[in-house]
């Protein structure tokens, strides 16, 4: 285990965490403010990736593709909120799960209907491709560094928006007491639509950014969705800061666990058993982390509401 490998793995963990944060931020806002479990958040991630791939194919511009992803997923989010989600706020969580699960199926088959069953092509722009040499001789893909930078600036922007702007105040107030802020004359349904499409746009942005280094295909959002739920449970539901810390914890645990657990087990058993037990354990690592944190703090790291 050299220093270079370790440093590279830590960067990988951070980058993975930052991308999870983009998904989790929207999810935690929607869950925290509206009390809604949105399983279709992964579909919005997929819509962002498909919109980016389609526009990149037509224009060849990555910036245009990112814009398209933001617009398409925000629009899809707003539409879904107005048509479906709005009717679910007063229902219990089981109804919400059922309805948003139906949305997953509709979005998946709809996307397949429009774009076909084969994965789409979306590549990183030539100017961001290739590795970059960091101090200490670490070679790291430039695009992943850009992802870390982009994610951190979104986190900063969201933090400022929540703490410094009028919308942010309304969001925080809505989280604490939704009847009260409605009584104070805030247009609560407009606020909900706004939050929902903001969350959708963040998911779509993550889909487009990640789609460029992964495969753009139907059903790509669901594995990320599960991890994003783990993140918001660890971070505390409704907390943007919690989502950021939780996402970084999950990203680092997942990446470093996959490397160190097999290495550690090699001290006690033979290499092939160590590899197979280690890789099974590492896929459980984040859930063990979640369990441990919930025993210590049942509402998550930054959760307040019980």
């Amino acid at each position, binding site marked *: 285990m050299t220093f270079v490998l370790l440093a590279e793995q830590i960067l990988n963990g951070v980058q993975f965490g930052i991308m999870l944060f983009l998904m989790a931020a929207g999810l935690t806002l929607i869950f925290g403010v509206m009390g809604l479990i949105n399983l279709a958040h992964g579909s919005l991630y997929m819509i962002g990736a498909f919109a980016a791939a389609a526009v990149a194919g037509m224009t060849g511009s990555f910036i245009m593709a990112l814009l398209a992803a933001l617009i398409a997923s925000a629009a899809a989010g707003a539409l879904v909120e107005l048509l479906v989600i709005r009717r679910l706020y007063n229902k219990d969580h089981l109804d919400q799960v059922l309805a948003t699960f139906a949305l997953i199926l509709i979005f998946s088959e709809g996307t397949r209907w429009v774009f076909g069953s084969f*994965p789409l092509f979306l590549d990183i722009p030539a100017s961001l491709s290739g590795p970059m040499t960091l101090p200490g001789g670490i070679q790291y893909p430039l695009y992943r560094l850009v992802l870390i930078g982009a994610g951190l600036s979104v986190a900063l922007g969201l933090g400022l928006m929540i703490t410094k702007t009028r919308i942010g105040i309304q969001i925080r107030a809505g989280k604490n007491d939704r009847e009260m802020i409605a009584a104070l004359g805030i247009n609560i349904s407009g606020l909900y639509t706004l939050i929902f499409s903001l969350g959708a746009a963040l998911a779509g942005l993550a889909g487009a950014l990640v789609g460029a280094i992964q*495969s753009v295909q139907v059903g790509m959002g669901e594995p990320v969705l599960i991890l994003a739920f783990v993140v918001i449970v660890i971070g505390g539901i409704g907390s943007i800061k919690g989502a950021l810390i939780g996402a970084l914890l999950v990203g680092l645990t997942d990446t470093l666990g996959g490397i160190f657990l097999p290495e550690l087990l090699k001290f006690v058993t033979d290499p092939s058993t160590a590899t197979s037990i280690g890789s099974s354990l590492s896929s459980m690592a984040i859930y063990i982390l979640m369990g441990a944190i919930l025993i210590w703090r049942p509402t998550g790291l930054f959760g307040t509401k019980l």
Partner: protein
Amino acid sequence: MKLGTLALKSALISAVAALSSTAIADTKVGMITTLSGGGAGLGIDVRDGFMLAIKQSERSDIEVVIEDDQRKPDIAVQLADKMVQSEKVDVLTGIIWSNLAMAVVPSVTAQGKIYLSPNAGPSPLAGAGCHPNYFNVAWQNDSLHNAGGAYAQSEGYKNVFIMAPNYPAGTDALNGFKALYKGDVASEVYTKLGQTDYASEIAQIRASGADAVYFFLPGGMGISFLKQYSGSGVNIPVIGPAFSFDQGILQAVGAAALGVRNTSQWNKDIDTPTNQAFVSSFLAEYERLPSLYASQGFDTANLLLSALETASVSDNAGFRSALKAANFISVRGDFKFGSNNHPIHDVYIREVVKEGDVFTNKIIGKVLNDHGDPYAKDCKM
């Protein structure tokens, strides 16, 4: 009176016999395949290849019932029950994934139905669990990985980094590779099934000092890996089986796959009249190039058609020996069944190239001649 009922009875019996003999002329095929969700591209290719052959045969007495298993074993089992019990099909086919095949095949073959596999070839069905009603037209799962190992050996690689998802077909893949590769293994890594980020594995490859990488990551997993690998600045050559390089996904990988060597029993440039006719008719019918899976669907249907020429499905033993004779011209070239009803065929090494705007494969050599599978010896039938 008694005589009268007897006469009536025999008249009835002969009428029923006459009816059922006209029913025999019609063959009913049940196809259970994946047509929705992430793995749909494979099922659609198998279906399209199969239906193209049926259409070209111009036979109107074959009915094909197609159902979508959504890549879920429980749904595949339900569909199989429905096809056997209420649709009363004679032959089943279509399953893409080994775990679904393991759930469906043993039960339908035990009920006396013929199963023709156009894709999955799990090792239990080739070895101790083989069945005279089960025919695999594609390959036994190890086949292309054996070829990968043989190719790495022939290229003189001494220290190969090998990687596959952590599930049965993944362990089979790496064991298949190691069967014919004699050098050292730099590291054997099992990733999560469905994993999309390979940054951590790529860092391990960079640090491993290997002279080649062999990976089995079907579908979207392979797309992600190749795109990330090409952006990482690691220059160790990569080898894989055809599943990560088929026509359906190469366009999504793009230039990142160029030059990569992969093993396959079929390619569109195999220069036989049958194959060239298949490629051009598939292109004309569906306006896309056929993939490996389409070629397997096409072969499956042609095997069925060839057997129907000599025997009827109702004559189980006769039909089975007609299938076993494999009296059809496969698009892959030489083809025959081994003692366990799995193919004996050649396996090639291909290279990813760009033809005009389209990424595709070109054969650069033959790796294995008349290759069967190591499980045939465990098959007692």
